């Protein structure tokens, strides 16, 4: 059993959850994303709990309202950069706007690689694409699990800057769970586990 402290995150706010390996950071993120249900306690999203919802309704809620960034660059390997970016739009039933994908990719200087197979991009490039993917469908909450752990300082700085700025620009709240202290300066609201 892992106990998590109570906390409230306002609209457009950013929150950093810091903790060492094995303390339950990923479990917390999965609970927040509705990928698993808490054995005790409650998580409310705009005063709505996901617990009474069916598995299918939780999937729909997550698809429409959340974006998730993972530690490793997680993509569907058979698809191109653009097609991977279209996935959240497809799964949340939103219009698959390729121009929006191009526009967002141009922010991270990857618009010229839009048709490339995702596997052809470097780890740093892939992480930037995964951040774009987490916001392309306009979610209310972006959840990031160790988004910079595998990156060197230069790439980590760029990802921290991108994730914070792009969520602000898209009016999304951001929760980052990490053991990476390079985030300390970017997000002031910190919870230590």
């Amino acid at each position, binding site marked *: 059993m892992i106990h998590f402290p109570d906390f409230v995150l306002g609209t457009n706010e950013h929150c950093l959850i810091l903790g060492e390996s094995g303390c339950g950071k990923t479990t917390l993120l999965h609970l927040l994303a509705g990928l698993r249900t808490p054995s005790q306690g409650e998580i409310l999203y705009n005063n709505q709990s996901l617990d009474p919802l069916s598995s299918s309704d939780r999937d729909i809620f*997550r698809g429409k309202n959340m974006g998730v960034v993972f530690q490793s660059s997680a993509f569907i390997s058979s698809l191109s950069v653009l097609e991977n970016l279209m996935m959240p739009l497809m799964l949340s039933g939103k219009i698959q706007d390729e121009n929006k994908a191009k526009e967002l990719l141009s922010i991270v200087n990857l618009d010229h690689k839009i048709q490339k197979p995702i596997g052809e991009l470097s780890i740093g490039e892939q992480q930037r694409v995964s951040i774009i993917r987490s916001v392309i469908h306009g979610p209310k909450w972006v959840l990031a699990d160790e988004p910079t752990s595998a990156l060197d300082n230069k790439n980590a700085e760029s990802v921290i800057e991108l994730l914070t700025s792009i969520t602000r620009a898209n009016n999304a709240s951001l929760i980052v769970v990490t053991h990476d202290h390079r985030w300390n300066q970017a997000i002031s609201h910190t919870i230590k586990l």
Partner: protein
Amino acid sequence: MNIVKLAIKNIKHQWLDSALSILLLAFGVGAISMLILVEKQTTEQFNKNIQDIDMVLGAKGSPLQLILANVYHVDAPTGNIKVGEAKIITQNPTIETAIPLAYGDNFQQWRIVGTDKNYALHYGMKLQQGQEFQSEYEATIGAEVAQATGLKLGDTFLSTHGLDQEQGDEEHAHNHNYTVVGIYEKSGTVIDKLILTPVETIWHAHEGEPDAESANPEITSDTNTAATAPPIMKKGPMMMLRPAHAPKAGPNDNKEVTAYLLKKRTPMAQIILPNLIKDSKMQLALPAIEINRLSQNFGIGMDTIQAIAIVIMGLSFVSIFVSLYNSLKKRKYELALMRSMGASKWKVFSLIQLEGIITTCLGIVIGGVLSRLGLSILSSQLNNSFHYQFQISDFSLGELILVGITIVGGVLACAIPAYQAYKLDISKTLANE
């Protein structure tokens, strides 16, 4: 992007595994589909040509050969019989019609058959051009003969002795010119492949050649003392089978024909007639029985090929299952990722099922193409040997059932991997990566 496009992309991404499954399935489906079409078209051809021919009277030998040679024209004849001797059968009251067939010559490997007008009437032939043959050396030709040889109305040609002599075999050519007086419409029957002429033409062309007895000295009969006399009837109960009137002698009794196609007036004919000629050098063969026997023998080979094809199909389903099962292990994280982006359990289940169904459908389509390719090769060989062809564009109900069974097999083969994808623990999968 949509789920079908995603499934296709996934199949392409693991093309080696997919290709193996598709190829195995294609070979299985192709082989079974080809067998279905061969069986269907062969049966249709057999039935079309056998229509209302109850018996065939010809020289002793293999009854199957007698049928194949005289009903389907795909084998050499068993020999000739005398017109006079045959009258015991052809003029028997139990026989409604007896169509004479006399042949032994060809034009560019197309058989020239001497007969009477009943032959074309029997098959309901219609004329495309010209008229039926009237007198000696007039020929009415089948549609396929006209197409292959380029013969037109009024054209003349020389016949070559034998049934499969090559074109231009001057040494064995007859001297008389045949004239094309008519061309039949295509009927799908054996007449499409024949050149018909009065039976007298064949007699005239072969005048002076040794007759059936001297050509087949090993065949003896009780009737060789009087060609026109009916065989001696045995005493006892068989006496009642004697025809009411003895056959009348005629001017052509000493002439020979290859066979008679017989239509019976009463079912008793099949019981009575064989006894009348059992001591002669003639035989009566029943097409239905011989073709049934041929189908049974042919069927053993077909069943073996079919069994092999079913095993290949079974293997292909195992291959689809293994391919999807293995890919699921590799793609577990990707599927969990899709779930984290809002894909429902049913969506990932459908995705895996769709991949299996698309793989199966590709196998079916390629199998269909392979079956037509095989049929085309078989057809070409058959055409060279017997002037018979298979219809490549044909489609049968059996194939439709095969498609249905294959799709169900494909769905079942990917049901377990799809269910595993459905039951995937997203949190555990994402955490373990």
